[in-house]
């Protein structure tokens, strides 16, 4: 209930509420101290501009302090693509950027505006941010996913393992009850051999790829279909001159029978700038 006898207090509260409800959508931090306008390229056509501090700046647009949410997948997709486009444009304009993930919003607090909050963060984290800039300058992120064909590899393993060959023989030749009991034993053995081979191959590929990149991160593997199994999922930070070398090494790996490689990029270095 508004108390009509105290108009000043009501106004003050309204102002506080306003700065509490506003935020800045953060796209990236750029290696540049300009106060610049990038145009209406942001989510939902918002005006994107920079908040500078010393020789760095935050690339933002004004928004409510609530995260961007939608039930409609197409809307979210569009937002994410817009986010990535803005980061790309900022990268082209300012050289080096530290990208943030989608939907990072800086709010205001009690008596601190979101703008001040950002400047404080840039100030406090300045040394760390400069270090990160130096790390990623003239480098790009590439995604490397290596798959194998489980059936092909199983056949290979069967050919080379005496134990598995003889178990297979038993299952075909022995009476049905015995065969039934032996099948899980075969499955177990195959599973163990597959795991051993996956381990060996992964270690080999990792070592070969590591030589071609500046920094490497192991990501979670994802389930695909039965025709292909993901062996490894890597994010690589690569200097622009070295990306050819990486491509050649991956080409060699993909030429091994039963193996497939998915090589994506270049991206801004999303995975290599971990913000707290």
């Amino acid at each position, binding site marked *: 209930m508004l108390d009509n006898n105290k108009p000043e207090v009501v106004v003050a509260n309204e102002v506080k509420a306003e700065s509490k409800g506003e935020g800045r959508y953060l796209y990236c931090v750029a290696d540049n101290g300009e106060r610049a306008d990038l145009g209406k390229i942001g989510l939902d056509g918002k005006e994107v501009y920079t908040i500078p501090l010393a020789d760095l700046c935050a690339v933002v647009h004004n928004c409510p302090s609530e995260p961007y949410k939608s039930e409609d997948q197409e809307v979210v997709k569009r937002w994410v693509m817009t986010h990535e486009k803005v980061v790309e444009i900022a990268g082209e304009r300012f050289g080096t950027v530290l990208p943030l993930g989608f939907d990072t919003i800086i709010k205001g607090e009690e008596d601190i505006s979101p703008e001040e909050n950002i400047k404080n963060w840039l100030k406090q984290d300045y040394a760390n941010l400069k270090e990160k800039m130096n790390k990623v300058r003239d480098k790009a992120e590439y995604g490397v996913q290596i798959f194998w064909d489980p059936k092909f590899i199983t056949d290979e393993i069967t050919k080379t393992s005496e134990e598995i060959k003889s178990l297979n023989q038993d299952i075909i030749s022995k009476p049905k*009850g*015995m065969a*039934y*009991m032996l099948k899980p*034993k075969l499955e177990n053995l195959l599973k163990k051999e597959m795991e051993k081979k996956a381990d060996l191959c992964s270690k080999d590929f990792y070592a070969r790829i590591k030589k071609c990149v500046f920094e490497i991160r192991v990501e979670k593997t994802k389930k695909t279909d039965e025709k292909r199994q993901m062996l490894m999922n890597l994010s690589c930070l690569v200097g622009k001159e070295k990306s050819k070398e990486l491509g050649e090494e991956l080409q060699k790996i993909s030429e091994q029978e039963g193996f497939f490689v998915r090589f994506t990029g270049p991206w801004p270095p999303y995975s290599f700038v971990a913000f707290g």
Partner: protein
Amino acid sequence: MIDIDEDNLKHGVLGLVIALVEVIRDALRIQAFKRMEGGSLKEDEVERLGEALMDLDMAIEQIKEEQGITQSVQSVRDGLDNIVDDVLDKMVNPERWREEVGDKQMERM
């Protein structure tokens, strides 16, 4: 939660029963393989054990097909899996028990 087909109570109860039979059959399988691997069985014993388990498999499949409860059985088993997972989660992470008990007390208030 276990999702039993309540449109047909008999159907639902049968689904539950067969789901439990499958769970017991799986336990039997594991024991049988253990005995075989342990070397305590002669070859003809392994043969008879295998055949008996095969017959059990076939009987279960036949009942499911005839009664049209294959889906029903699968949902019961999936529901059981979720419940077991949930209990294990809480054993691994006792904070979750405390949170749940706390929530329930809040609801009563």
